[in-house]
């Protein structure tokens, strides 16, 4: 059976995999079988993610941080897929998945340190906000250029395979990134070498102002898998349980040595591209409505409420808790000084060659910039 037929055999191309029904119950055939406690735990993460998004956007509007790129509306796709990966697996992020990093164990404080680019920032104030790193949690390094992490995720998982270790990688990217050369090479190499990578495409409808129909003429992103002999699946990205189930299947496939999976998570970017963007220039708010009606967090809440595991009181307490922790972390981050001058010259190489030593001295001996932070 050709891989073409193989992929088609799994599902028709336009079919969307769903588990969480409108009435809040789960399709028993595909229910990933989480305990209620586990679902509550993830739900708290969803609330944390959304609340932080709102608070960070406010901080940016106040001019206290320079930038934020949020995940409004995409929380279930992001947290569900990260949840489904094993602890031993590695995540290669795009720039929109702070919810994933926090779920993996990046501390809120470290996250905020990065948003302020202070001396405690894991990336030493060298990158924009939302470009932290968390190696100890097997979570990658964020690059602004679109798509570059994709081939890297493949190389990492391929290396593990060469090394005989059962480790998979998951890489996040958007619909726009499917047009990048890295998507093409990453999928192709993964297909040829049966690399255990999960390609997780957040199809959120937009690449800044460019809509998906301008990104590709293919009917779906999932079907692109077929061009690489890779299995592709299309999942309701606003359905936490479907995302978990589909990602788990992909990891299991990887662990069985069957290679990569492309998951297209159908979701929607409910905010602007970032705090620098004004989506009203190119998109009417009415376009949000159908998606608001299928809000990924509301849907889990409905499910939990039905089970009696959540209510307004717990919701309020949860948000209050986030707010308190956030306030505290912001206070610390804002008081932390900027990285020291000499840190600018560290990590270019393992140790600074003569020219960087010279330049470091020049900077330190020289006058300070007037608007230095």
């Amino acid at each position, binding site marked *: 059976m050709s891989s073409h037929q193989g992929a088609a055999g799994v599902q028709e191309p336009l079919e969307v995999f769903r588990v969480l029904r409108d009435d809040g119950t789960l399709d028993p055939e595909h229910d990933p079988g989480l305990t209620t406690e586990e679902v509550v735990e993830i739900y708290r993460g969803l609330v944390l993610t959304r609340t932080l998004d709102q608070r960070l956007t406010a901080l940016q509007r106040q001019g206290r941080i320079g930038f934020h790129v949020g995940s409004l509306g995409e929380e279930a796709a992001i947290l569900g897929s990260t949840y489904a990966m094993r602890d031993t697996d590695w995540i290669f992020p795009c720039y929109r998945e702070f919810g994933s990093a926090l779920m993996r164990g990046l501390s809120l404080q470290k996250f905020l340190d990065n948003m302020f680019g202070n001396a405690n920032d894991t990336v030493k104030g060298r990158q*924009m906000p939302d470009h932290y790193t968390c190696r100890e949690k097997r979570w990658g390094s964020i690059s602004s*250029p*679109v798509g570059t992490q994709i081939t890297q995720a493949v190389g990492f998982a391929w290396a593990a395979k060469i090394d005989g270790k059962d480790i998979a990688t998951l890489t996040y990217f958007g619909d726009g990134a499917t*047009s990048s050369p890295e998507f093409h090479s990453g999928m192709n190499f993964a297909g040829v070498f049966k690399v255990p990578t999960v390609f997780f495409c957040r199809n959120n409808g937009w690449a800044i102002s460019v809509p998906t129909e301008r990104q590709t003429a293919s009917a779906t992103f999932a079907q692109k898998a077929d061009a690489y002999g890779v299995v592709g699946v299309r999942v309701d990205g606003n359905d936490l349980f479907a995302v978990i189930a589909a990602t788990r299947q992909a990891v299991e496939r990887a662990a069985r040595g069957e290679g990569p999976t492309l998951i297209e998570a159908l979701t929607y970017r409910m905010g602007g591209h970032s705090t620098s963007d004004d989506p009203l220039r190119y998109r009417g708010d009415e376009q949000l409505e159908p998606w608001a009606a299928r809000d990924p967090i509301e849907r889990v809440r409905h499910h939990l409420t039905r089970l009696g595991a959540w209510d307004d009181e717990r919701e309020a307490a949860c948000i209050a808790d986030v707010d308190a922790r956030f306030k505290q972390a912001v206070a610390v981050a804002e008081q932390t000084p900027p*990285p020291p001058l000499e840190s*600018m010259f560290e990590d270019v190489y393992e140790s600074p060659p003569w020219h*960087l030593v010279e330049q470091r001295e020049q900077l330190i001996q020289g*006058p300070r*910039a*007037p608007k230095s932070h």
Partner: protein
Amino acid sequence: MPQMNMVQAINDALRVAMRRDKRVVLLGEDVGKVGGVFRVTAGLFDEFGDARVIDTPLSEGGIIGAAVGMAMYGLVPIPEIQFADFIWPAYDQIVNELAKYRYRSGGEYPVSMVIRTPVGGGIRGGHYHSQHPEAHFVCVPGLKVVIPSNAYDAKGLLLSAIADPDPVLFFEPKRVYRAAKGEVPEGEYTVPLSSAAVVRAGDDVTVLAYGAMLYEALDASAKAQQQGVHCEVIDLRTLWPVDIDTILRSVEKTGRLVIVHEAPRTGGYGAELVSLVCEKAFYHLQAPPVRVTGFDTPFPYTLETEYMPLSHRILPAVLQVARA
């Protein structure tokens, strides 16, 4: 004459060119409906429509490759790369194809276009929204490299670049996109390529600068003047082929040279300027030429004002060279 900032002046140049010549088309990411992430192409989609102001899929290589084909056909494509930091996926098409097309085809296929792209730091963009990559293009035979420092030049140089028969990298110093305001004539006019401008006359030290750093050079020069050092500040405007005569005329007078650029020092464009001056005016030099540049690190975020060669770093260099 209307007052415009650089964004408006570039927008105006594009409009003038598109009205006059149906062959001019714009393409890039977000250049259409939303008018560019810096609003440089604002309003052009509405006036000229989807066939001439084209939002493309997210592929810089595709944008430049397609533009090469369009130019071969006879259109005048003006692709935008959203940030110069994202030009690398198109580097193969630029270096191996665009720059060599006329040559490799024995002149049968001249391929010209203007690649517009915002460059430089000072907007808190970290190392992926601040690069100033002229060195990577000046070293490629077949390309021209242009960078305006003010609104008037931006429009005039862009109209020259669009009319030019060779491929031009048109760098837009985004730090002064809005700050560099001035009078800009309506309609057609050009500022010729390969002509530098002496923007401040002086006898003691020649300061070569361009783009956003020109203002820093001018600021430092004003401060140097208070200490009795008279700088001649030259806005290069075209980096390659550079206006060597204007440079030499000045250095032959001053005998002293300071070069300012944001990009890292090593292998930077400043090295070429030092070398050219040494080759052609060595015996006029009374002191070692000095480069005031970005450091040899990726562009940082929090410390960006310490990284950049701003006035506070140019001034001591000027004084040192003057007194050497």
